[in-house]
């Protein structure tokens, strides 16, 4: 047996002895685990806070308020076609710029980025040289204004952490109430768990020097959330 296998047997053995080693003991544990999972699958589980279960008409406003509170800049647009100009405006307003990296997502690739006076732009995963990135969130949770991203060919995970400015696109119809709904939506959209599911709430920050809160620790200093009002 390898060291890992020996260790596995020893650890599980010790836990098993503490919990009861008889066949019936083990059987009852397996039943308890199965029952727990079935309950969760039926949506019967831990209590859901009221703020994580608002009805659909209230969610957009809640999402915008919570995102803003957590440090994001929220911009609402009626049509995705307005995105390149919106990003260009935002960057001009912040006096920011530099190479733009757009996620290779069909919705984004269909847009006219060249016509938006936005400078150099490319699609693909982010590199060290990119200053701004744009990607599409698969879901959002209104309870804290959080966005969910599924890593994959259309959404490279580097886009969310390498550049200084990250622009997230979220369709209003995909804003859910709580984390459970947003993660479930992401899981369905991806047909299972992706390599990494990023739940992001506001820009990167640290308070490690004298508890002084500063944005842009290792990830983006600015998190821009563009809500597309598709309903």
């Amino acid at each position: 047996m390898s060291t890992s296998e020996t260790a596995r047997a020893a650890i599980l053995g010790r836990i098993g002895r503490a919990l009861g080693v008889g066949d019936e003991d083990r059987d009852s544990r397996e039943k308890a685990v199965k029952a727990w999972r079935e309950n969760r699958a039926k949506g019967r589980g831990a209590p859901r806070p009221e703020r994580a279960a608002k009805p659909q008409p209230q969610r957009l406003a809640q999402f915008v308020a919570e995102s803003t509170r957590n440090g994001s800049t929220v911009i609402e647009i009626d049509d995705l076609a307005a995105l390149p100009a919106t990003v260009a405006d935002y960057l001009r307003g912040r006096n920011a710029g530099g190479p733009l990296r757009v996620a290779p997502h069909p919705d984004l690739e269909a847009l006219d980025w060249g016509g938006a006076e936005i400078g150099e732009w490319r699609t693909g995963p982010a590199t060290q040289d990119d200053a701004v990135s744009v990607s599409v969130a698969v879901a959002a949770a209104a309870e804290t204004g959080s966005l969910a991203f599924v890593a994959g060919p259309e959404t490279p995970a580097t886009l969310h952490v390498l550049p200084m400015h990250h622009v997230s696109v979220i369709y209003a119809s995909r804003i859910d109430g709580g984390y459970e709904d947003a993660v479930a939506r992401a899981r369905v959209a991806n047909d299972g768990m992706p390599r990494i599911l990023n739940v992001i709430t506001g820009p990167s920050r640290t308070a490690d020097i004298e508890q002084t809160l500063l944005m842009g620790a290792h990830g983006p200093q600015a998190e821009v959330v563009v809500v597309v009002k598709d309903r």
Partner: protein
Amino acid sequence: MSASTHDGAAPVSTGDFSADARRAIADEQLQTVLSRFSRVSPASRAETISRLPEFELLRDAGKAIKDHALANLDVYLEQFEAAVTEAGGQVHWCRDAAEARATVLQLCRDVGARTVTKSKSMATEEIGLNDYLEEHGIEPVETDLGEYIIQLRKEPPSHIIMPAIHLNRQQVADTFRAAHDHLPPGRKLEEPRIMLDEAREELRSRFLGADVGMTGANMLIAETGSIVVVTNEGNADLTMTLPKTHIAVSTIEKIVPTLDDAMTVLRLLARSATGQDITVYSSFVTGPKRAADPDGPETFHMVLIDNGRSAMFDGGFRDMLRCIRCGSCMNHCPVYTTVGGHAYNSMYEGPMGSVLTPGLRGLASAGDLPNASTLCGKCETVCPMKIPLPQLLRRWRQRQHDARLNKPAQRWGLGVWSFLARRAWLYRIVSRLGAVALRVGAKGRGRLGRWPLAGGWTAARDLAAPSSSGGETFMAAWRRGQRR
């Protein structure tokens, strides 16, 4: 001289809690930092929780989730292992620190690694991984800003989530000036913003050049084989996305049953830790990159460590295994906020550390810690997992007594008291004699400036004595009906 300099003048911990605590209390710089910390941290937690009226319900739910997971831990660990394997990852089991260190080293050597970027992991602190890797020619680079600072200073962390909380900005600036010696020595470094930008720049190249990215895990989800890693800086996401190999290091009690259960814990974690609604980056990692993914590591290793957990399991300390490492107990602890983290001489400080460290290291060498508490109970009231910390501290004290590990004078004193307390008539006589002795000693002034065996008390204040008119015992006053 500060107790926390990195010039080798004084080690931050000597292992003697009393001596280190005294030194910390005399350290003006540390006291300034701690005083601000003890105001800010509880206030931000209280503010966030005021916006979530269901917080108490969620505490109960969080406790129930962890109790259930622990009561069926063997089944859940097997499920987790199967799911990680199914997702293309590999699980490595390790009984103790030595096995874990050797496993990680071998994994690093297998890919010819020279540098490893790390996001904050208490499990790797616990097994002393950084020193071990360095001794074997592999450079570990801490990327959490606080961890980076103390790694440069060769100091241990002083708080589980704010490892550099004991330092002020001047000390950080001095550290950077000494470490980043390729930059102009006369550059401006006064503001935290400038220091952060410098650290960001320095660490970027490390992120991009690392052979292995190593993270801890805040949770292990049995249902999906996912690990949950939370940070505010985004350093974990860079760590586990850029290098070709991701090694996650964690301990067996971090299991939760399902994704939805993880959400309940997330609602508790950041609110208790930093007073945020949620940490900025909450990432769920399931195996290595998929075939079509344009970025992410090619291999995912899960190093799963016991290191004393299974012994705590059947040793009366199972409640402690619910801990989610938020730090709320220390943020609210009158002892921690007075002496700081280094006096605990452990990577786990405050009340949770005082319970956990003796379990990991043994009572013989960590016996001061369960006694470093006033048992005021604040820790239990703010613990998101409702861990009965004062009860567990008392349990260690009792074991210490039973194993004759406490001081002879303390055992003798407790022995005398318990002898008397079991004989009510004798107790009354002795306490009456005591009251008379105190009254005579006070010479009618009603207080005592000195008293045998009470030097610690009378050094800073008088000891109250029974008044010369009454001079009765508490029990006598109680019987007379003075029940105030």
